[in-house]
Structure formats: structure tokens, C-alpha cells
């Protein structure tokens, strides 16, 4: 793998600016807007909150929660200004995407109002969906045909509005390049973690990638690892140009190895690579023939539970 392949995504969240991905057309309300009018405004525009703006300046944010609280209180009608959140987390339009990602992570908010740094005026709103949308656009990844399974993913995917969306990452691995072994797995791991993918899923994908990477380095002239991150699963595809595996069944057996001694001296080549990949996979297929290339496909379903939920489930079991 070369330096330029090192996780495009990672670089992009530093390169892209908030203003390049934000939604510019923002529905706002005035401080004097009556609370009773709010419901229609939110409903008609299908939004769950709106920045409160006075003469171009952000003075607060009013959300559907504020509205519900107002209803529940049975309070008399009042201007939005009386019920809005005044201490609003914002971001400037010239900040990097990574800043927005960090702020989402820290605050737990789904959206951030964007201010022009010089004038202080509200110029847009940025959501997690905007960020992913911006990244996808830059990556020119393909939106695949709908195959909606109702599977709900966590974090970053929950704000994407599309029938099906996925993110495709590609890593190139050079044969015999032992010094860089694991760089693809490491880059993938960092990226998945930043995307908010469950740690268990992330680890399985990283281990499978690492073992596959090692196989490419030890046995082939090099190859390509393509990782498709979709809401319901991570799909790995590893392809190389040869020499191929003469006896797949045997190669899959734990402990069977044709690795040279220098690989063994480095702690690998014990014949556990493919077996380990299988342990990480929900589905795995391996196509190969001697003299030809090898194509490995691995599917890892997204863990939907949080760590805490899984742990308590294990305790009960």
C-alpha cells in the first residue's frame, strides 16, 4: 500500500470544510414567533427544531422537545424567545469537518448551526448526514439499488437519507512489503472507529483485514482490499493475481501452512490466517486455483447492540 491510499476518508475530514457540506437553506424562526405557531412550522418543513435568528444573528435554538415541554407545562402562549435554548453550540463555516465530528461526539447533538466567522451571521446548519453526504460525494461512491432490510445501523448511518448507502474504501498491498504489513488494517480500524462503528464489528473487520493483508504480503505479488461499509454489514473483498491456492480445503485447516521460515520467525505463518478470518466472518467465500489469482470475500454483520447491552445479555445467558 502506498502513502496516498492511507485512508482517503481520514484525510478528507481534515480537508473538507464545514461550508462545503453544510445545508445552506435553513428554516429559521424569529424570537418573537409565538410558540403556538411553532408546531405548524416544524410540521410543514419536516424539521425537529429551528435556529432562532434576529437580524441575521443566531440568538438561540428551539426544538420539538422545547415545544413538547411547553405543551406539557400548560403554559400560556409566549414568544419562542422565552422557551428557546440560548447557550447554543455552534461551528464556524471555515472549520474542518473533523471539528464538527468531534463536536457531535462530545455534545451528542445531531446538528450544529454554522456561523460566518467574520460577520457572525448564521449561514447554514450541518448535520451528521451532511458530513457523510459530503464525504460520499467526494469519494464518488455509488449509491446501490435499494435492498432495504429494515436493518437500522447506529451512529453515522442513521442520518443518511437514501434507500441504500455505502462507503467504499480501497487499500493496495504490495507483496513482500512486510514493513508495512497491517497498515491497511490499521487505517481501516481508525476509519471505522471514526465512523462510530461498534468496537466488536470494527475489531473483527480489522483482524480479518490484517490476516488477509499478511497473506497478500507473504504469498503474492500484491493485491487489493476493498471494504464496503454499509449500514447492515461490512464486506471485505481481497483480490490478487496469483499464485493461487491449489487445495483450498487444506489451506483452511487450522495449522496447515506453506509459509516460509522468515515469516514464522516474525510470529506469523502458523497456519491460522484463514481460520482466523473465518472466525471473524459471518459469511466467507474463497475462490482460487493454482496458477490463477485468489478472491476472498468476507461479510461481517453490524453489531447492533451497544457494548453494555451485549455484556448484560452475556451475563444473563
Amino acid at each position, binding site marked *: 500500500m502506498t502513502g496516498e491510499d492511507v485512508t482517503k476518508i481520514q484525510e478528507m475530514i481534515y480537508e473538507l470544510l464545514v461550508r462545503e457540506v453544510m445545508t445552506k437553506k435553513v428554516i429559521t424562526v424569529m424570537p418573537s414567533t409565538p410558540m403556538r405557531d411553532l408546531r405548524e412550522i416544524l410540521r410543514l418543513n419536516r424539521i425537529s427544531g429551528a435556529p432562532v435568528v434576529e437580524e441575521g444573528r443566531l440568538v438561540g435554538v428551539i426544538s420539538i422537545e422545547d415545544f413538547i415541554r411547553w405543551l406539557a407545562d400548560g403554559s400560556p402562549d409566549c414568544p419562542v424567545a422565552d422557551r428557546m435554548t440560548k447557550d447554543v453550540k455552534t461551528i464556524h463555516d471555515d472549520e474542518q469537518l473533523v471539528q464538527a465530528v468531534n463536536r457531535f461526539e462530545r455534545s451528542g447533538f445531531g446538528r450544529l448551526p454554522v456561523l460566518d466567522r467574520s460577520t457572525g451571521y448564521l449561514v447554514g446548519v450541518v448535520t451528521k448526514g451532511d458530513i457523510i453526504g459530503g464525504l460520499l460525494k467526494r469519494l464518488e461512491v455509488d449509491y446501490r439499488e435499494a435492498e432495504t432490510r429494515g436493518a437500522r445501523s447506529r451512529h453515522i448511518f442513521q442520518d443518511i437519507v437514501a434507500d441504500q448507502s455505502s462507503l467504499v474504501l480501497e487499500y493496495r498491498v504490495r507483496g513482500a512489503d512486510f514493513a508495512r504489513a497491517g497498515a491497511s*488494517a*490499521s487505517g481501516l480500524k481508525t476509519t471505522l472507529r471514526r465512523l462510530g462503528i461498534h*468496537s466488536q464489528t470494527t*475489531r473483527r473487520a480489522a483482524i480479518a483485514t*490484517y490476516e488477509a493483508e499478511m497473506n497478500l504480503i507473504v504469498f503474492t505479488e500484491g493485491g487489493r482490499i476493498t471494504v464496503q461499509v454499509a449500514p447492515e454489514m461490512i464486506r471485505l473483498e481481497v483480490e490478487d493475481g496469483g499464485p493461487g491456492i491449489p487445495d483450498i480445503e487444506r489451506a483452511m485447516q487450522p495449522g496447515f501452512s506453506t509459509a516460509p521460515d522468515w515469516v514464522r520467525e*516474525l*510470529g506469523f505463518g502458523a497456519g491460522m490466517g484463514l481460520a*482466523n478470518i473465518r*472466525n471473524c466472518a459471518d459469511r466467507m467465500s474463497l475462490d482460487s486455483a493454482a496458477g490463477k489469482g485468489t478472491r476472498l470475500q468476507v461479510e461481517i454483520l453490524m453489531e447492533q447492540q451497544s457494548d453494555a447491552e451485549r455484556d448484560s445479555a452475556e451475563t444473563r445467558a
Partner: protein
Amino acid sequence: MKLEEVRRILDAEWVGGRPKGPEGGDRAVRSCHASDLMSDVLIPSGACAGSLLLTGLTNAQVVRVAEISDFTAVCFVRGKPPQPEAVKLAEEKGIPLLVAPLSMFEACGRLYTQGLVPGDRAKGDAD
């Protein structure tokens, strides 16, 4: 068990100084894996997460494995210092490294008797 305590039990020394970061030597070690076979500690279940990797290997792949399997730290036994590439990678990834003068057997024995458990028996949230 805290990493600093592990260091003391093993009479080990930090490679490149005490670990930096908010937790420093206070980061938790919940279990231990001792292996010179790296595939054996690439475990998807998360049994290695938060664990200490004890090994006689000194190359950079040991650090890669620690990163990929979410080990807390790596300790090299028999007083063998890690190779420069390993040290560089560990710095990059924020993985603390230790060198212990003990054999693998004695290092394991000391940690086990002091209460460190095998990874698959460790309690608590691995992540």
C-alpha cells in the same frame, strides 16, 4: 490492575519513558495474553481488549497486533528491547511498551499469582 503495578511486578522498564496521555501508567490491564504466535492473539471476541501482551518477539508486527486486537500494552520478556520500528509505531499509536528482564514463564507466573487472569475469564467491559 494498573499498568504501573504490572511494571512493578515484572521489574520492567518503560520503553521511551512513562506512557503519556491522560491515564499514563494508570491505565487498566484487565487480563494477560502470553504468545509468540501472533495469529493466536488476533481474537475477534474481544478477549484481548484491554489485555497485556507478553511476548518474546520484538518486531513492529507485535505492535500492529496490539493495535488491531486492542491490547492495553506490550511487554517484551527476557530483557530484549523492541526493534526501532516497533518503538516508532507504538509511539504513533499510543501503545505503551515495557521490557522485563524475566523469562516468559516467570513473567506469567508472577502476574498470575498477583491476580491477573486469562483474557477469556476477565470480567468487565473490554471496550
